[in-house]
C-alpha cells in the first residue's frame, strides 16, 4: 500500500483516539506539549432575557446592555463593567472584536453594545477595531471573540473555534479533511494568548448544519454564552445545540460530522477543556428551554 498514514475515522471519534490519528499541522506549527492547557477558568456563564429579541427579530439594545453587564461581572467576579473589562484587557491595548460575518452572523447590535461598553470603561474608540479577517489579529493586543451560535455542515459546530478560520490565511484548507484541526489556528504566534473573552451571540442560534440557514432550525434562545476558556464555551454551545436537535426530532439527532475539532482543541491543541464535567456552568435570567 502506497499510503500508510493513519486516517481519522468515525472509529477514532468513538474510541477517543483523535489525538493519535490527527496528523501533521497544516500551518507547520509544533503541537503543544502533552497536557498543555490554556490558563484560566473553565467557568461558562449563560445570561438570557426573554425580551432581548422578539419573534420578529427586533432586538432591544437596553436589554442587551444589561445582559452584557451581567455577563462581564459574572465571568470576571468584578463588581462593575469597567472593573470587569480592565481585569481582562489593559487600558492601552489595541482590542480586536471578532464577530462572525456569515452563516447566522453575529448581530450588529451585539458588536455595537460590546464596543460601547469598552468605550464607557475608558478604552479609546481608536483602540477598538474589527479584527475579523485574514491578518487583522496581528495589529491587536487583545481579542474579544463574538461568534454567532451555529452548527456547521463541515465541522459539526461552527461557533467559537471556527471563528478564527480567516487567520489561517487559507480557510478552504480547513473545509475538508483538515476541519478537525481548526484549533491549531488559535496557536498561531499572532493569535495565541490574545483572546481575553469569548462572548457567543446566542440570541437566535442555528442548530442544524446547513450549509445554508434553514429557518426551521433557528430559534429564539435570547442569550449570551461567555467565558475565558474557548473550548469550554464551545462545549457548552455544543450541549445546547445537541439538546435543541433532540427536542426538534423527539429522539437523539447527533451532529454529523461530529464536532471532532472541539475534542482536538482540548486533547491536541491544549486550548481548554471539552469535558463537560470539568466545566462550571452558571446561568442567569430566563430559564425556559435552557437546554442544559
Amino acid at each position, binding site marked *: *500500500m502506497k499510503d500508510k498514514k*493513519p*486516517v*481519522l*475515522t*468515525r*472509529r477514532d*471519534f*468513538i*474510541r477517543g483516539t483523535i489525538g493519535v490519528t490527527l496528523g501533521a499541522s497544516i500551518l507547520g506549527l509544533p503541537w503543544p506539549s502533552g497536557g498543555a492547557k490554556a490558563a484560566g477558568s473553565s467557568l461558562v456563564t449563560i445570561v438570557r432575557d426573554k425580551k432581548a429579541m422578539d419573534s*420578529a427579530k427586533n432586538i432591544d439594545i437596553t436589554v442587551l446592555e444589561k445582559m452584557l453587564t451581567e455577563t462581564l461581572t459574572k465571568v470576571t467576579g468584578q463588581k462593575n463593567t469597567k472593573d470587569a473589562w480592565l481585569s481582562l484587557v489593559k487600558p492601552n491595548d489595541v482590542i480586536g472584536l471578532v464577530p462572525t460575518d*456569515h*452563516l447566522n452572523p453575529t448581530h450588529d447590535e451585539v458588536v455595537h453594545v460590546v464596543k460601547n461598553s469598552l468605550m464607557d470603561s475608558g478604552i479609546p474608540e481608536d483602540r477598538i477595531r474589527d479584527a475579523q479577517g485574514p491578518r487583522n489579529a496581528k495589529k491587536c493586543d487583545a481579542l474579544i471573540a463574538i461568534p454567532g451560535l451555529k452548527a*456547521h*455542515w*463541515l465541522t459539526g459546530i461552527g461557533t467559537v473555534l471556527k471563528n478564527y478560520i480567516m487567520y489561517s490565511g487559507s*480557510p*478552504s484548507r480547513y*473545509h*475538508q*479533511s*483538515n*476541519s*478537525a484541526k481548526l484549533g491549531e489556528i488559535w496557536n498561531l504566534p499572532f493569535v495565541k494568548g490574545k483572546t481575553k473573552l469569548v462572548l457567543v451571540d446566542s440570541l437566535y442560534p442555528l442548530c*442544524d*448544519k*446547513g*450549509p*445554508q440557514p*434553514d*429557518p*426551521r432550525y*433557528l430559534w429564539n434562545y435570547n442569550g449570551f454564552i461567555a467565558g475565558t476558556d474557548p473550548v469550554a464555551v464551545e462545549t457548552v454551545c455544543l450541549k445546547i445545540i445537541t439538546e435543541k436537535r433532540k427536542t426538534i426530532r423527539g429522539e437523539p439527532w447527533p451532529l*454529523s*460530522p*461530529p464536532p*471532532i475539532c472541539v475534542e482536538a482543541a482540548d486533547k491536541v491543541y491544549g486550548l481548554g477543556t471539552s469535558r463537560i464535567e470539568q466545566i462550571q456552568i452558571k446561568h442567569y435570567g430566563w430559564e425556559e428551554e435552557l437546554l442544559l
Partner: protein
Amino acid sequence: MNAGKLDLPKTVGVWNRPDSSRHINSKNIFQYMNGAGELYLGYRFRHLEVFDYTSPDQGNILVELYFMENADDAFGLLSLDWGGEPVSFGGTPAATSNQFFTASTRALYGGGLMRLWSDDIYARIMAERETPTSKDAVFALGKAIAANTQQPPEPALVKILPLEIDAVWKLRVDRLSFFRSHLVLNSIYYLSHENILDFDLLTEAVSAPYEHISNSGDPKRSQFLLVQYENPERARQALNRFHDAYLPEYKKIITADTDADNQSLLKLEDGWLAYKLLGKYIAIVFECPDPESAKVILKKNESNLLKKGEGS
C-alpha cells in the same frame, strides 16, 4: 433549461425582482456562499441564478435556482432533508410519509423556506419574514418554477433499497439521501474526513437507516450505504481503500464472487459491520446489533440489486 424559460414573474404580491439575475458558477460560488459551495460542487453543479424580490416594508424574498447536470443531482439536494410540509403544485395531493415518499415529494416548506426539485433544478425560495402574505408569494414562485417542467423519477439507485428487510427491519425513507461526495455522506453519516470510499462525480450513492422496532419501543438503527462506481475495478479499488482506512486491523476478504456468502462481517466499537463487493457496487451496513441483522440487511439489498439485473 435556463432561467429565461422559467418565466419567473416580475411581481409577486408586493414583491418585485430586477430584470436580471445574479449568475454564480463553480468559480465564484465560494464568494457567494463561503464553504456552503462545497455542497453544490459535491453534486454535478452547472450554475446558480439568484433573484432578489424586494418589497417596501415586508422584507425580501430570495430565490436561488441551482441548475444541475441532471434531475438525479437536483433530487439529491432535496433528499438531504425531507422535513417540512410537503407541497403539491398540481392536481395530485402532496406526499405523506409512505413508500412513494421520495418519488412524489417535489417540494417542502417550513418557516418561510421552500425547497423544491423540478427536473434538473433544485430551488430555494426564502422569505426574510414569514407571514401569510409572504407564504403565498413563496408558493406562487414555487409554482412558477415547477410549471411546464418534466417530472422525472427518482434516481434508479434509490429504488434498489428494499422498504422492508423482514417483519421488523424497516427502511427510514424519510432519512434516505442520494449523493456523490464524501462531504455529503459525512453530513448524513460520518465515516472519515478523508475520502476513504473514493467518491467523485461519477459515483452515485444512497444511504438510509434501517430501523428495528422492538416490543420495548426502543428502536435500533443500522445505517445502510450503497455506492455505484463507474466500473467494477473502481469499486474494488474503493473497497480496498475503505478497508485499509476504516478496518486496518482486520483481515481483508474482498472478492467479486456474488454467489458465495462472502461478505466481510466484523464486530466494531458501535456494532456489527458488514460489507460486500457487488460488481460495480459496494454495499456496507453499519451499527447492526448482531451479525444476523448485518447479514440479512446486506443479503436483501443484494437480492434487490440482482433482481434489477445489477450487481453481477
